[in-house]
């Protein structure tokens, strides 16, 4: 039985057509996967379904009746529930308060919390989900928050559940638990739309896949007829080649952290709690961990933005005394920052100005003492733009107008032209499309061949396993010993990401030099 029918939905934001005449159907008791790259229009489509956006054209039928557009309450009443990618929860309120909001008329003089709690507990038991109603949302883990989001939808009697990139924030074990819950829901007749760009998850959970590319519906396939490569090709629109990783003998250490402690704010736990990591020449070390476990502090430390409270940082054998970005750049540290908009580029300055920003003090860019030599700067940038294939209309345009991929190429060009001995690559491909991802990965591998050591920070384990030689797991500011990629599985890393760092001890310590 068809429970949902989206008919010819079109939605534009300015000149960008986010959804172009998209139609899809959903049957009862089915998991439909919506696959597409970042920016393909998946979230926009479902935000229209849930009433956050109003479509320019097209209509939506839920259980045979037309849904009034642009009204979340209408969608909820029709039995649609949505688990947002960025959870829509209020941290300072309790789990119960977050769930019951909107369930009782606003004119009512009393909130029946006892009854609400009973109903919530019954629902949680029915679907085998553990929930503590009285805790503050701020005090619960990311996995629990997601359960609260799901519970919010079930509490309102949702029969169609939309999950927008639900696995992005979870450890592999939490993903398994989520899938168990989803299967229980389907068994009870609920229908699910599952958005993702992770192929193995889609293959594991869905019955049918719809593929979106650049705002258009480009294909539909039953999951049993699909495999990884065919899905990837549908999503990207051409065959996807994986980067060739060659194993190389690691050389001398380029950077060594010795028992580094970085204090948190007053009354907080340390951000880094005695971290020791060594990265050698010709080596990519992957840093795995759920977001917020100290990756940002480590990134800041290795960029020279933060001074450790104790412990040492050695660059190519010399202990660092001057913790400043300038000193780090001079010593051959290249940085690809986590948030390229906030820290990577100055959006309102031109492409060439951003391009020269790390070489500002160097001779050829100056003349007459301390005046910018514009011709030399433009020449300098023109070379890099060509060499790194940064696509921009002119180098005089503001850097913020570059697409994500080209902005990242600009940062890579600026960083790599100094031939750094160590590269901190913090989430280098987040939010990029497949083409740009391949380009970034190829550059990092080339840098490794040329002799650089790389620390690759990523939340995507597939990326780490594809590129890294060793993996280090970070949890609450502590790191595991380095593990050779060949020795461990995604499951092992997942267990460690959830807090059991000692799980890594049973493997040989890779390169414990």
């Amino acid at each position, binding site marked *: 039985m068809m429970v949902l029918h989206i008919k010819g939905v079109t939605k534009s934001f300015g000149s960008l057509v986010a959804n172009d005449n998209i139609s899809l159907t959903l049957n009862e008791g089915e998991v439909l996967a919506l696959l597409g790259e970042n920016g393909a229009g998946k979230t926009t489509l479902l935000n229209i379904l849930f009433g956050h956006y*109003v479509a320019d054209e097209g209509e939506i039928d839920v259980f045979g009746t037309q849904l009034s557009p642009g009204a979340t309450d209408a969608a*909820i009443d029709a039995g649609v529930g949505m688990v947002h990618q960025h959870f829509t929860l209020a*941290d300072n*309120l309790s789990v119960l*308060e977050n769930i019951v909001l909107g*369930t009782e008329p606003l004119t009512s003089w009393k*909130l029946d919390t006892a009854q609400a709690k009973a109903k919530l507990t019954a629902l949680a038991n029915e679907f085998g989900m553990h929930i503590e109603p009285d805790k503050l949302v701020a005090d619960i883990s990311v996995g629990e928050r997601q359960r609260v989001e799901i519970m919010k939808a079930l509490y309102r009697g949702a029969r169609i559940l939309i999950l927008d990139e639900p696995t992005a924030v979870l450890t592999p074990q939490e993903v398994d638990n989520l899938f168990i819950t989803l299967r229980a829901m389907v068994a009870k007749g609920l229908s699910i739309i599952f958005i993702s760009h992770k192929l193995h998850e889609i293959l594991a959970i869905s019955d049918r896949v719809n593929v979106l590319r650049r705002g258009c519906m480009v294909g539909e396939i039953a999951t049993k007829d699909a495999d990884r490569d065919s899905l990837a090709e549908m999503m990207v629109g051409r065959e996807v080649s994986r980067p060739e990783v060659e194993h190389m003998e690691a050389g001398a250490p380029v950077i060594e952290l010795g028992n580094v402690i970085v204090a948190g704010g007053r009354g907080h736990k340390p951000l880094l709690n005695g971290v020791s990591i060594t990265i050698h020449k010709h080596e990519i070390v992957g840093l795995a961990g759920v977001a917020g476990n100290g990756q940002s502090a480590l990134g800041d430390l290795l960029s020279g933005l933060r001074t450790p409270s104790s412990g040492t940082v050695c660059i190519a054998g010399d202990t660092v005394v001057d913790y400043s970005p300038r000193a780090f750049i001079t010593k051959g540290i290249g940085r690809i920052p986590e948030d390229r908009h906030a820290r990577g580029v100055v959006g309102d300055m031109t492409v060439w100005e951003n391009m020269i920003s790390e070489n500002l003090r160097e001779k050829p860019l100056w003349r007459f003492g301390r005046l910018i030599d514009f011709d030399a700067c433009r020449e300098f940038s023109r070379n890099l733009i060509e060499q790194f294939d940064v696509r921009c209309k002119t180098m005089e345009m503001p850097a913020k107008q570059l697409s994500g991929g080209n902005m990242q190429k600009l940062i890579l060009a600026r960083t790599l032209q100094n031939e750094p001995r160590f590269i901190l690559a913090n989430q280098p491909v987040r939010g990029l499309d497949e083409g740009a991802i391949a380009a970034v990965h190829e550059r990092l591998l080339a840098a490794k061949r040329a002799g650089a050591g790389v620390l690759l920070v990523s939340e995507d384990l597939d990326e780490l396993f594809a590129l890294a030689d060793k993996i280090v797991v970070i949890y609450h500011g502590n790191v595991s010993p380095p593990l050779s990629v060949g020795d461990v599985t995604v499951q092992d890393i997942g267990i460690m990401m959830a807090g059991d760092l000692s799980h890594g001890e049973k493997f040989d310590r890779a390169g414990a030099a």
Partner: protein
Amino acid sequence: MSDLLEIFLTAGFWAATIRIACPLILGTIGELICERAGVLNLGIEGIMTIGAMSGWMWVYQGGDLWTGLMFAAFIGALFGILHSMFTVHLGLSQHVSGIGITMLASSLSFFVFRMMLPSSTTPPKIVPFKPINIPGLSDMPFLGEAIFSHTPMTYFSFAVVPVVIYVLYRTPVGLAVRMSGENPMAVEAQGINVLTIRTAAVATGSAFMAVGGAYLTMSAFDAFYFGMINGRGWICVALVIFASWRPGKALLGALLFAGLDAMQVRAQQFAGGFIPYQFFLMLPYVLSIAAMIVMARRARYPKALLIPFRRGERI
């Protein structure tokens, strides 16, 4: 020193504290409601002024005291709706709009006052709320004079606090208001219109502010004059932070500030000879800055305060 201690032993000091606290309580509660919904309302100074003027004018033109209060609340709500038009619906800067509302409402109050009463040299007076003696209780020694011999509006000001606490923490609409100030997207995702909730909260809060202003012209004094509010609105904005956005603490903060104010008037009398009186005028403000520094460190801001919510935009 013993002179200072004696101040606390007079019933008059405590009665004055309670009187001075009332407009602060109403203003602070009003500001708190706005901010809990995520909207800073710096229009408070002007809204208190126009509340003071309009309530008084209603009575001066022959209206009754209680309907005068309602009129003041109504005018306050109108200016609250104006503020929310700019900040909630158009998503403009809450600071700029708030300052604008203050300038508009203050100037309009004086303009209307002069327009309606062009030729008055001495400020015209009304018959304000009279103290009522609560039978039995007001005859008690000390407490009778300190607590049980106030005007009905004073009791009303104090009664507002538990009502607001109940509504904010025990009703669905209160939950929606608090959630709007924490994460408006969560409110939207539960099918409730954030803009409506915020507009209603700002209008209600502004009505309270206006009634707080009206307390001055209709209960504490009997006339409206220029410079009447004299920064009380700004004190209320500070008291909200002092109270860490909790109504119960807001009541305590208002009483604390009022107590300091009542004390400085009395301290002037015995120390005015050798210390300039300006020093005493300054005291409540200095002490409240000190208290703010201590309290504000632990304050828990509504997370979405100052952040406009725009529906249907790309997230």
